[in-house]
């Protein structure tokens, strides 16, 4: 997808709306669904990776400093990571408009 779908005109659509580019769901920003975002307190993090395992959207990635960080482009804000974190290192905070 070269541009957001809200910019496509009817004339540009493929016959039957066939998606010709495999795997382009990765370009779909599910991050704007959330109202709460996970914030990690690195002091408490024990690098166990449970947030990474439980995340239903596979939004967590391992950073170079060995922390699991949620990619907010995909994170829908469900809060499962915060609920499962054994040390309480993740807090869900209201995402405010910038």
């Amino acid at each position, binding site marked *: 997808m070269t541009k957001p779908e809200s910019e496509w005109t009817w004339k540009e*659509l493929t016959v*039957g*709306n*066939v998606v010709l580019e495999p795997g382009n769901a990765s370009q779909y920003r599910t991050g704007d669904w959330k109202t709460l975002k996970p914030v990690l307190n690195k002091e408490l993090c024990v690098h166990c990776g449970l947030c990474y395992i439980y995340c239903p959207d596979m939004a967590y990635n391992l950073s170079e400093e060995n922390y699991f960080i949620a990619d907010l482009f995909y994170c829908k804000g469900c809060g499962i990571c915060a609920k499962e974190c054994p040390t309480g290192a993740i807090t869900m905070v209201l995402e405010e408009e910038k």
Partner: protein
Amino acid sequence: MGKRVGMEVSIAAAEAVKQGNVDVVSAYPITPQTHIVEHLSEIVANGELDAEFFCVESEHSALSVCVGAAATGARTFTCTSSQGLALMSEITYIVSGLRLPIVMIVANRTLSAPLSIWNDHSDAMMIRDCGWIQYFVENGQEVYDHVFISYRTAENREVLFPAIINMDGFTLSHVIEPIEMIEQEKIDQFLPVYQPLHRLHPDHPVTMGAFALPSIFAETKKAQEVALRSSMPKILEVWKAFGDMTGRYYRPIETYQAEDADTLLVTMGSFGETASVAVDQMRAAGRSVGLMKIRLWRPFPFDDLKKVALRAKQLVVIDRAMSVGACGPVASEVKAALYGSDQRPSVYNFVAGISGRDVAPPDFIKMVDKAEIEIGEGNKEGYELYGVRE
């Protein structure tokens, strides 16, 4: 000229599917469509047609299998009636949205309740808005011919829509008629191997039937709407090519004795042949009556209809289905087509022959009599269920 053979229309339909070299047949038997699917299963089992024949557990699955098969690029056929079409209805919208050129014969039958196996158009009207090309045919020859016509039209790159051939259940499906069979070489020339635009193939992964958000849904429907309306020239072109091959030319709106007629009967399906007998009788009695037959139901031929209808003083539209709480569905369309014209004929609407009740030439004459009297008395938009005992 091909060989003329006396055969049951359902058998002729199955033979046409064989001659059309279909790759996949998926259907579930239901009266009065049963003989088509039974004969096709024999044809495939006997090795006369190299196709996959899927025995499914329901019509919902029958059409779903067709979707999958057509998505891989197979030429695909199904057929059903009534409750079976109701069970398929969910999938009918998906087929047209995905632009898969599946061809389906519907042996038209009444929808329950009350339960009835006989003919009317209530099943076809239930899925009127499903986005398929929809033909109504008048006799067995037209059923046979339209199998080839439908595939060539549906599979055209500028069309790519599924097509339904509506034929009246029992009235056509179970009668023996002389059918002029077309030589196989001619069919092979007329109907080349299907070349799909997109298809499911592991070497070229694509997604079909993806989710659409509100931000793009209307655009997809606009594209579908424009494509179906724009398929009209191709529909006409295929009919012309078929006529050049066989001498049988078809039009979206066909007429009989309509040129100078003050009163026009308007019919769809097998009513047309009976009504033409009634027209002959009324003409012999010196009455100015003609007949207009709607062959193409979707895309609806508004312009062709207007050309014929605007010459008449009154139309007597005979529907074979009800839209309970409104008027007959054909009459609604005819009225909509004429509304923009200043000098438009009166439209008197009868619903007749529902659930297979016989409508003979004298009945058409009675309907014309009644309409002419009522319109003369100022009731210009009458609507009634014909022949109901008071």
